[in-house]
């Protein structure tokens, strides 16, 4: 089974998320955040989504490679569950980002290399989803989807990490020559909520992926039982 043998990580996820949500709303802000003002609290929701998404998609990529190497159906099911969860996480990150952008830049979408890269990357993963839905033969579907997943992950990394670094101008923090959150954080203690938030959100989505993988495996086992009964 794809069950993770530790139960405590679920409890840890709940505790860390409770801490993040409650203390994230109560924490006093640093004085020099400027126009960001109270919206900087979105840091605890928007940024962890992307960190967790990169981690989850990377693990899914490794599972895809492992599937092609030794053809265990279990690995592909885990990779699929992780990739779908990664897409969900990316969409959450996109929507929280649009909400943030609407309140600070004045529009939910701007012509920025980081945003455009993510949009293209999400369409790549939409292609992955389409392959999964459009092939009926299970083994062939698993193979094609794994190959496509192995293809798109390096391009996705190139799109959201390398391209914004190459771009001259970007208003999104953390790329090009724009502002960085390190410049704000000198006097304050926002990190004590930020790092637990990353761990908490990632663990929550790992939990979702685990449930999904277990469901798929049980479904497959049921089908096999029907087949050989």
């Amino acid at each position: 089974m794809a069950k993770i043998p530790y139960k405590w990580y679920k409890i840890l996820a709940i505790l860390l998320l409770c801490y993040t949500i409650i203390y994230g709303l109560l924490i006093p802000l640093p004085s020099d955040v400027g126009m960001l003002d109270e919206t900087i609290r979105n840091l605890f929701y928007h940024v962890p989504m992307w960190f967790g998404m990169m981690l989850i998609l990377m693990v899914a990529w490794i599972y895809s490679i492992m599937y092609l190497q030794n053809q265990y159906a279990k690995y592909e099911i885990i990779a699929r569950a992780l990739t779908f969860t990664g897409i969900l996480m990316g969409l959450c990150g996109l929507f929280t980002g649009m909400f943030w952008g609407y309140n600070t830049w004045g529009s939910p979408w701007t012509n920025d290399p980081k945003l455009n890269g993510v949009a293209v990357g999400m369409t790549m993963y939409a292609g992955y989803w389409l392959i999964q839905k459009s092939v009926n033969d299970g083994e062939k579907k698993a193979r094609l989807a794994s190959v496509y997943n192995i293809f798109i992950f390096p391009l996705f990394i190139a799109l959201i990490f390398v391209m914004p670094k190459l771009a001259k101008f970007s208003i999104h923090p953390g790329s090009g020559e724009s502002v960085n959150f390190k410049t704000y954080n000198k006097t304050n203690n926002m990190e004590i909520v930020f790092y637990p938030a990353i761990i908490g959100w990632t663990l929550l989505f790992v939990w979702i992926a685990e449930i999904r993988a277990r469901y798929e495996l049980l479904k497959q086992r049921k089908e096999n039982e029907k087949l050989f009964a």
Partner: protein
Amino acid sequence: MVCIIFVRKYIFLDLSSIPYTVKFFLKSEWKNKYALSSVFIHIFIAVLITYLSLPGIDKALFSSLFWLIVIFTTIQGISKSFLTMNKGHFLYWHQLLSPVEFLITKLIANFLLMFLFTIFSMFIFLVIHGLMVDDIFSFLLIAVVTGTGISSVFTISSSIAAKTDHPGMILPVLTFPLVVPLLLIGVKASKKATDGLGFITLLPETLILIMMNVLIVILGILLVKFIWKE
């Protein structure tokens, strides 16, 4: 480590049969002339539509419009060689060539076709919209290098799409997002060429394009045997 094992496996390939197979594919392209000429007519009509709807375009619009037309017209011409193959064709080629040899053959044949299409669309574009490119050799170089990358992405993704149940619908969705990184750099570089900034300014973009192309081809060669298995 894995890379080294793969490289050692693939570096001693027997490539002696490839020129003949490339020749065969090009000949079969030449045989059904309707398919080849329909791509040329498609390009011509697309350029004509852009001319009629946007009569006086400037240099900034020129290169983006050029690349839009190139990718939307050549996708049919490049991918149809895979999409029209049925299961029997695949089995036949499987007996004659290994998957890697087949992919290399297709990459070379499609590169030559793409070269032809790019030169033709550039010619038509320059004739209809007027001579807007200041540095025509740099533009040609960028067009060829980007065209190589685009044709290899088209080849690999159409080989994936050909195995799905509805290839015609899936193909554009699988292909266009993968082309975007190449296209972004290509558009940027060809804009520099239309402004005539000189070859030296294009050098970094050209190198990045060549490196991305090599990466795509290596990934394709490593993965093609999993796409091909029946």
